[in-house]
């Protein structure tokens, strides 16, 4: 496994998750100590040099985000961590939060130092309740040890962190929905502008990053932005946590340098397809991500290379499907997810998802006609270009890309054939 490196996951499994003692002994909190002696702009400069891009999915350059947050003069400012991790197939934040939350806490503390923020929140999905307790313990212990809370490391700098639970809503991964949820409301996205950097939590300037993004910060400060960047390629700096799932031999979270190919990921690190089956499809970035066949696997894991193929890295989830799966059945499953998770606020997403699901169900039933392709396309386009937030805009990515690469499977269903033998095609018989 020459392709794997451990920069940000290096302490995972080697320290007790809530033990400050273990973490410090292993080298933790060196970055915060260093940061205390650095100016905010110097810290931002290192983050910029690292070429770190937001790891939640939007891939916005973290250094620039911090710089913008720093330039906003209104106070107070909040630091918020997105640990909602709702994208199916993604469980990397579970690893970071569950095995080494202190690194995240350290990263957030450094961010607070930069922005002179006094309060921060770690929003963790409700399904990770046990992990929330671990993180709360870690926070408590960090406060006791003087790394968090009042007068950090004996200085005037104080920063308080609190864990906030979600309660089962994928849409809360969207920044503005997430702050609504922290404020105790239903997580429906807000209209933008204002952006959360100006008016986020409690309508105050808010810096919001993903668990993985904040967890990269200590390494960057400790070793320098250039060092981190050098692990990736020219366009994408550092390493990425990828979550492998589906029909692949070694399902786990792996830290890999940018520039690795998807083929290496699936066949070398992932160990290939079990039970002698063949690969049918890979979906990258979770249920909102693009689907593609084996031929696309030589693409590099790199924001630019992926983009040239019309693919987003998203959360870094890699879902592998073998030939026992049916594409129509898979898309049906994806659409069921989005029908369940749409917040309902805007017309395209509220109404569009369910109509697409009904149309895909017609394919699964064998009752679809050629005209249904056009109907699906109309709704897909309207959602992609016209939905209120990212959820609606990406809900049909799987369908759109499956129609691009696997349209013949849909066409076969019109003829009453499911090559994987998954769909019942009941409607066809009834007809």
């Amino acid at each position, binding site marked *: 496994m020459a392709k794997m490196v451990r920069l940000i996951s290096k302490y995972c499994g080697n320290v007790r998750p809530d033990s400050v003692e273990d973490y410090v002994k292993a080298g933790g909190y060196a970055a915060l100590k260093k940061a205390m002696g650095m100016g905010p702009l110097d810290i931002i400069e290192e983050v910029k040099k690292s070429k770190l891009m937001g790891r939640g999915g939007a891939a916005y350059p973290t250094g620039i985000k911090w710089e913008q947050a720093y330039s906003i003069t209104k106070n107070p400012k909040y630091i918020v961590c997105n640990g909602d*991790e*709702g*994208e*199916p*197939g*993604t*469980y990397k934040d*579970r690893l970071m939060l569950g095995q080494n939350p202190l690194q995240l806490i350290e990263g957030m503390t450094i961010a607070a130092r930069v922005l002179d923020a006094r309060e921060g929140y770690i929003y963790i*999905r*409700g*399904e*990770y*309740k*046990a992990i929330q307790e671990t993180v709360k313990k870690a926070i408590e212990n960090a406060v006791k040890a003087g790394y968090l809370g009042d007068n950090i490391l004996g200085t005037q700098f104080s920063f308080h962190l609190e864990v*906030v*639970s*979600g*309660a*089962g*809503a*994928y849409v809360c991964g969207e920044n503005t929905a997430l702050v609504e*949820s*922290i*404020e*105790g*409301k*239903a*997580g*429906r996205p807000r209209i933008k502008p204002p952006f959360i950097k100006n008016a986020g939590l409690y309508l105050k300037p808010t810096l919001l990053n993903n668990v993985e993004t904040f967890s990269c910060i200590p390494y960057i400060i400790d070793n320098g932005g250039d060092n981190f960047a050098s692990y990736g390629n020219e366009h994408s700096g550092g390493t990425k946590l990828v*979550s*492998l*799932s*589906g*029909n692949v031999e070694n*399902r*786990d*979270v792996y830290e890999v340098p940018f520039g690795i190919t998807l083929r290496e990921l699936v066949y070398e690190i992932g160990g290939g397809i079990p039970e002698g089956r063949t690969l049918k499809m890979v*979906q990258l970035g979770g*249920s909102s991500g693009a689907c593609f066949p084996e031929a696309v696997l030589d693409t590099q894991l790199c924001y630019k290379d992926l983009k040239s193929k019309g693919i987003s890295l998203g959360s870094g*989830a890699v*879902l*592998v*499907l*073998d030939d026992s*799966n049916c594409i129509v*059945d*898979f898309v049906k*499953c*994806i659409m*069921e*997810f989005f029908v*369940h*998770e749409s*917040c309902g606020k805007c017309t395209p997403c509220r109404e569009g998802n369910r109509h697409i699901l009904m149309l895909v169900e017609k394919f699964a039933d064998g009752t679809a006609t050629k005209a249904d392709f056009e109907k699906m396309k109309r709704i897909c386009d309207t959602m992609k270009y016209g939905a209120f937030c990212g959820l609606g805009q990406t809900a049909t990515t799987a369908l759109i890309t499956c129609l691009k690469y696997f349209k013949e499977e849909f066409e076969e269903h019109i003829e009453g054939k499911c090559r994987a033998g998954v769909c019942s095609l009941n409607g066809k018989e009834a007809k």
Partner: protein
Amino acid sequence: MKGTVVSEVLTKYDNSKDRLVQILLDLQEESGQNYIPREWLEEVSQKLDTPLTKVYDVATFYAMYNLDPKGRYVIEVCKSAPCRSRKAETLAQSLEKLLSIKMGETTADGLFTLQHTSCFGACDISPAIKIGEKVYGNLNEDKLAEIIRAYREGQK
């Protein structure tokens, strides 16, 4: 003097409206039947001086809340793509057979409720289910039967 269940939970969160999501999670746990009774939501609305409609909105928005009583153990079967690729629908069928109920129903003894859920991040061990906070993965029919038996016995 001991306050009501609601007032005790509210006190834990300084009677703060901002903590409504957490407050309702705690109340659901307190109910013992995995749901939030209507009277409790009304009490929350009054004590937090926030319209009942807004409390109701939160309670109906998030998937983890139930407004009707559920079984003591809610068994959640993941229906997202990673689990489906590992044939999670057979888990649902096995559970329906084992418990003699359909998805969405509760056993007559009030012990188990069976329902679907979105991905809860156990994709490394899919197909997976969740019972309360506990996650079980790499499941097949035999393992499921064992798990259910253990819960039933733990009951006695």
